[in-house]
């Protein structure tokens, strides 16, 4: 693609004491692209997300968003620039009803920066957003405390909280983990719709079948290293990837 990349990750690395969680990972992400990140457990996928959003500080390398270095900014400023993420372990406000959970992102300074940001009744906007991710409008479920919701709804709530910020780059950290096939099938169209709306997305996922349905490109990680990158089918034929997933033949 000829357009300038939305996100550039340049030689990013992180070590926790002696453990090298991430080593020298670089990639570019074009606007509107959906990048899948896969890899075995402990391969550094979530660390990569935490480094991009700077929930943890990188040991080396840098991250550029729209050509601007962001890896020195605090996490809340990165969100304001337009990068929103979900957490693998959902982080709702358990005490509050589901729709009140949405008010906090809707109060965000990010909303004030957006041209034509939605003003007016935040509760109504919250219920609209929840409906978009599959909370039935007339059911009681949006009014239940988040602590009383089943896992499927909590994951949807997590997604809705990220979408509420109208991000340019959305990072989904294992959104499908812990969900049934039917629940995943309900969320995939939501992601496809976000793509059609032009949102750039990074998806970290173990559910390869669903991921390959939506991903333009896949990045494979193992032991903190990028071992392959490219179209889904090509990547899965790669010897290093087969090795990482299925073990070596020797």
């Amino acid at each position, binding site marked *: 693609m000829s357009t300038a990349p939305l996100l550039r990750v340049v030689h990013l690395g992180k070590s926790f004491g002696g453990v090298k969680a991430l080593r020298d990972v670089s990639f570019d992400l074009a606007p509107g692209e959906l990048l899948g990140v896969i890899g075995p457990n402990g391969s550094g996928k979530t660390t990569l997300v935490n480094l991009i959003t700077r929930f943890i500080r990188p040991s080396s390398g840098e991250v550029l968003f729209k050509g601007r270095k962001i890896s020195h900014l*605090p996490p*809340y*400023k990165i*969100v304001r620039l337009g990068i929103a993420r979900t*957490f693998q372990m959902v*982080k709702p*406000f358990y*005490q*509050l009803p589901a729709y009140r959970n949405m008010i906090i992102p809707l*109060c965000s300074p990010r909303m004030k920066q957006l041209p034509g940001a939605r003003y007016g009744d935040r509760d109504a906007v919250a219920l609209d957003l929840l409906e978009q991710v599959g909370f039935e409008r007339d059911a009681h479920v949006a009014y239940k405390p988040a602590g009383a919701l089943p896992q499927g709804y909590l994951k949807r709530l997590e997604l809705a909280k990220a979408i509420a910020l109208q991000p340019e780059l959305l990072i989904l950290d294992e959104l499908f983990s812990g969900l049934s096939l039917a629940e995943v099938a309900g969320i995939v169209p939501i992601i496809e719709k976000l793509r059609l709306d032009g949102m750039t997305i990074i998806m970290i996922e173990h559910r390869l079948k669903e991921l390959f349905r939506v991903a333009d490109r896949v990045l494979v990680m193992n032991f903190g290293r990028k071992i392959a990158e490219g179209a889904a089918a090509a990547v899965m034929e790669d010897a290093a990837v087969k090795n990482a997933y299925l073990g070596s033949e020797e």
Partner: protein
Amino acid sequence: MKRRKERIDRGIRVRSSDVFALCSWREMLYLSGPRLLPVAACLLLPAVLGVYWQKVLLSVAVFALLAMSWDMLAQTGMISLGQALFFGVGAYGAGIMDHYWHLPPWVTLPAAALGGGVVCTLLLLPVLRLRGIYFSMVTLIVPLMMVRIIEATKIFGGTEGLSGMTPLPSRWVEAYVAMAVLLAALFGFRRLLDSDYGLVLRGICDNDRSVINAGINIYWFKAQALFLAGCVGAFAGAFMTHVYMFVGMPVFALDYSILPIAAAVVGGPGSFAGAVLGAFLLVPVSEALRGFGGLRIVLYGLFLVIFIVALPEGIFHFLQRKYHQFERWVEVEK
């Protein structure tokens, strides 16, 4: 036959939850009653109490303010063990302004409250990043450090303290100033925490990373909560300086840290009204037990334990539930 308790909202609660409540006096009274009651109590109590119990009432107001200040921090996820810091900074602030600069109480009270808020915020700013017990430990230590600093450097009268402050004009002014500030803090804080701003504060307590993830600078919000709590706590201290006409090292005593927490916990944390109720219960009980001499603290402790075991949710939440809901026993289907 197994039975369980079922709780159902009262009809009047449902009826008065929308605009139709304005059509009936009964519904309007149901809504306004719980708000008018504390206002009426605060207006009438100073008038009906004798001189001694009026002084107790001032003490109640001071501990209620400190308990609300603790509750404000607790709702933002900061468990403080050092309300004495706020109290002491406010007390010394008013004392210094009165003793050295001869300013009247009408200047020292608001100035010590606001200035105390600023000083406490600045003192605790470096530890705002600490969470849970680590934050608590620091807040516990800071007031104890202040005592030693004053003792060692002999500033502000050293161990002798500063005395001869200007009192407030009369005991009526004292009582009504205390009640007015108490009501303002109670209703102001409750309203604030009900707003979207308050939602962000409570979100920080519930899940701070999720609030960061909404692009919100939680340290800025925590600092604001600290400032508000600091102002209220410092006002309590400044007020006591003018009531006792003295300020000294005891203002940093542990009592001012622990009793407000007890009041908030007995009354029901997370509501501010609970903190006030708790202070209105605990301080007079402590006074009434004076006749028991050495056994006083034992009986007081026993009283606390009984309350916490019997009503772990706190008095306010218990009363609120009884007010809005009725209970009945229903048979459990097999």
